[in-house]
């Protein structure tokens, strides 16, 4: 069998049914094999589109995303997408073509050292040296990508080794890696200590993140919270890990979190951190973060324990296993009246709110609220990065895990739309909506071609303020309103652009038109739709912890401004 055929055989064995990619010289043998394969290949319009789509597919489905690109520029165009997946711990296996083995190191045409380039942004990577190793490496790559703390793995495949024919006999040998073991079990002593601490807590808070979703532990999280009536705040990556509509939900915490979530963190006596990494956008100044709390930290990655904050009770292990061990040791609590009263008071006093437009323009937050209302919180929402991302986190009530897809760690503009394509392919039963900004959407707008070709009916809602809004907001607040290169008034007509690609384009400039436009978009089942919402140009994301400030001292959002 040819190396390329062995590769596809191994992909099928891993349960891969769809790959996202872009062909080129060095991957010709792989594409030749794909021609006869039952694996579905989605042709992106740029390698970055392919890799984000594979990422969106992985996030929406919980499976491992797969993507293929050629050597040199094909590989380097993937870098942003690989780094995006790495920062957010998304399981992905990325195959890159490489120049033929004898040419490696000779600066051949379209040669780039992709294993070297991706070393710090992959969980692991491989440069194939012998066709005989294909089966073992593919098996290891998938095993590494999806187990423990998930992450992207790159496999670099020299062209000649994909062409080479060898006698191939498939085996079912298990993966053998001396330096990598799948985590099993949790330390029961630590569980007992943690349970005692939680049982005695008067003002506990759960701080839940992406690890809950990765571990499939949303049900356990809900059970624990409800058993002990513990309020839950989630990180951006944790959106959907706990239902936003639950009475115990505090929404998101951190820089653009709710005031009540940040106040609760400030006042809590026991903080139960579950599948989180104490990111700077969450903690702000670390000294001000949960100053009165004993901290229990559950995470599968031992290196996260004590990395950013000192914790009292570290529990290293799969979140699901840890919570399952913890729950039976927790007392059932009827109420935590004093603490809940304090929190309700904060909720009443400081709800998320936004002002009215002075010129009768649409408020972007209102668009997100409308999307939430019309989809009943049951769509998959992808976001770009910036104001659109924060409003999508604040004003949409997520009910289920894997319904909020956003580049949390790396903050990649241009992520949302291709991710939405991947998500819709993974979950055709769900409405998939990309909440975008006019800046971000232009970073991967070419993927309209992909979505039209494969009849992927995703809806792009551009909150169009004709600005790079988040940067403009910071320039307004911290750089004396000097809007340096953030005015994006010069932009294409997004409606005509959509139509040029064969998609549907709708422009909305009045509040009364919002619902009709969304309803019309929901009816389209065979192509993507762009809704270009012209919104208030200088609306800000509030409340906000100013950089270097304390989460107890948030800016804005106190009254209608």
């Amino acid at each position, binding site marked *: 069998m040819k190396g390329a055929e062995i590769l596809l055989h191994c992909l099928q064995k891993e349960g891969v049914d769809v790959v996202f990619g872009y062909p080129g010289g060095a991957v010709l043998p792989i594409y030749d094999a794909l021609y006869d394969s039952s694996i579905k290949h989605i042709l992106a319009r740029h390698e970055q589109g392919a890799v984000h789509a594979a990422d969106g597919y992985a996030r929406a489905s919980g499976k491992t995303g797969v993507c293929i690109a050629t050597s040199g520029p094909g590989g380097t165009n993937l870098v942003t997408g690989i780094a995006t997946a790495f920062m957010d711990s998304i399981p992905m296996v990325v195959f890159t073509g490489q120049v033929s083995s004898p040419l490696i190191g000779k600066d051949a045409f379209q040669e780039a050292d992709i*294993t070297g380039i991706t*070393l*710090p942004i992959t969980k*692991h990577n491989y440069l194939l040296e012998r066709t005989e190793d294909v089966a073992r490496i593919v098996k290891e790559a998938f095993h590494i990508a999806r187990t423990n703390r998930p992450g992207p793995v790159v496999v670099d495949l020299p062209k000649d080794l994909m062409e080479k024919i060898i006698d191939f006999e498939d085996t079912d040998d298990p993966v053998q890696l*001396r*330096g990598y073991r799948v985590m099993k079990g949790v330390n029961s002593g630590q569980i007992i200590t943690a349970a005692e601490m939680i049982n005695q807590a008067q003002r506990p808070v759960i701080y839940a993140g992406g690890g809950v979703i990765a571990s499939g532990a949303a049900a356990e999280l809900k059970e624990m919270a409800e058993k002990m009536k513990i309020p839950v705040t989630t990180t951006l990556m944790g959106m959907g890990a706990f239902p936003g509509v639950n009475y115990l939900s505090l929404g998101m915490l951190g820089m653009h979190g709710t005031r009540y979530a940040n106040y609760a963190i400030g006042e809590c006596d026991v903080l139960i951190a579950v599948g989180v990494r104490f990111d700077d956008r969450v903690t702000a100044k670390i000294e001000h973060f949960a100053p009165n709390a004993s901290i229990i930290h559950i995470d599968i990655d*031992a*290196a996260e324990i*004590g990395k950013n904050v000192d914790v009292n009770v570290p529990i290293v292990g799969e979140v699901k296993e840890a919570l399952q061990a913890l729950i039976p040791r927790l007392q059932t609590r009827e109420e935590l009246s004093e603490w809940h009263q304090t929190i309700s008071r904060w909720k009443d006093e400081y709800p998320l709110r936004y002002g009215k437009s002075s010129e009768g323009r649409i408020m972007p937050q209102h668009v997100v609220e409308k999307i939430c209302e019309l989809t009943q919180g049951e769509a998959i929402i992808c976001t770009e990065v910036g104001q659109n991302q924060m409003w999508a986190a604040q004003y949409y009530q997520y009910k289920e895990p894997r319904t909020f897809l956003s580049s949390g760690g790396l903050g990649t503009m241009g992520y949302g739309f291709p991710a939405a394509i991947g998500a819709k392919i993974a979950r055709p039963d769900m409405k998939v909506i990309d909440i975008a900004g006019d800046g971000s959407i232009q970073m991967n707008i070419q993927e309209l071609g992909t979505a039209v070709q494969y009849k992927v009916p995703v809806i792009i809602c551009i909150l169009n303020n004709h600005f790079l809004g988040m940067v403009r907001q910071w320039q307004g607040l911290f750089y004396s309103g000097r809007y340096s290169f953030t005015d994006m008034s010069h932009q294409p007509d997004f409606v005509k652009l959509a139509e040029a690609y064969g998609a549907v384009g709708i422009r909305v400039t009045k509040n009364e038109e919002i619902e009709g436009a969304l309803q019309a978009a929901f009816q389209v089942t065979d192509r993507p739709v762009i809704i270009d919402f012209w919104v208030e140009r200088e609306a800000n994301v509030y409340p906000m912890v100013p950089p270097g400030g304390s989460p107890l001292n948030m800016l804005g959002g106190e009254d209608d401004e």
Partner: protein
Amino acid sequence: MNKHTLAVIVENKPGVLTRVATLFRRRCYNIDSLTVGTTENPGISRMTIVVEGDGKVIEQVIKQLYKLIDVIKVIDITSESAVDRELVLIKVKADNSVRADIVQLVDIFRARIVDIGRSSLIVEATGDRGKIDALEDSLRPFGIIELVRTGKVAMVRGTK
């Protein structure tokens, strides 16, 4: 700042040194010295890394090293009873008037002269860091032309 000596057992594969070095650079850990060589098992290499940092930093270094797939085991042997050795080659100026003095010094340090040139000598010595430092200091007044140290290798004493 404390210096810690880590014995890092790794897969003997291409690129492993790069992975370790990249990790240290990316996380801003200070490598004092790093040596790598094969072991009794041809599939396994052993690195001895001397790294600066307080307890918290070293804990992070060890945990981050463990995240590399090719790292099999990390042992902090700083507080263990261990034998550690370094090898140095020093080319020192040595005309006839000082040659005898240098030879005497070399004897005291149980070092060896491994090359004799017209106006220089190459001295080879092995020992722990203190001894090598002392030898270097003693030879400096004569004029060191060139010096190379291997960095430390270390092994825990006894059967452990």
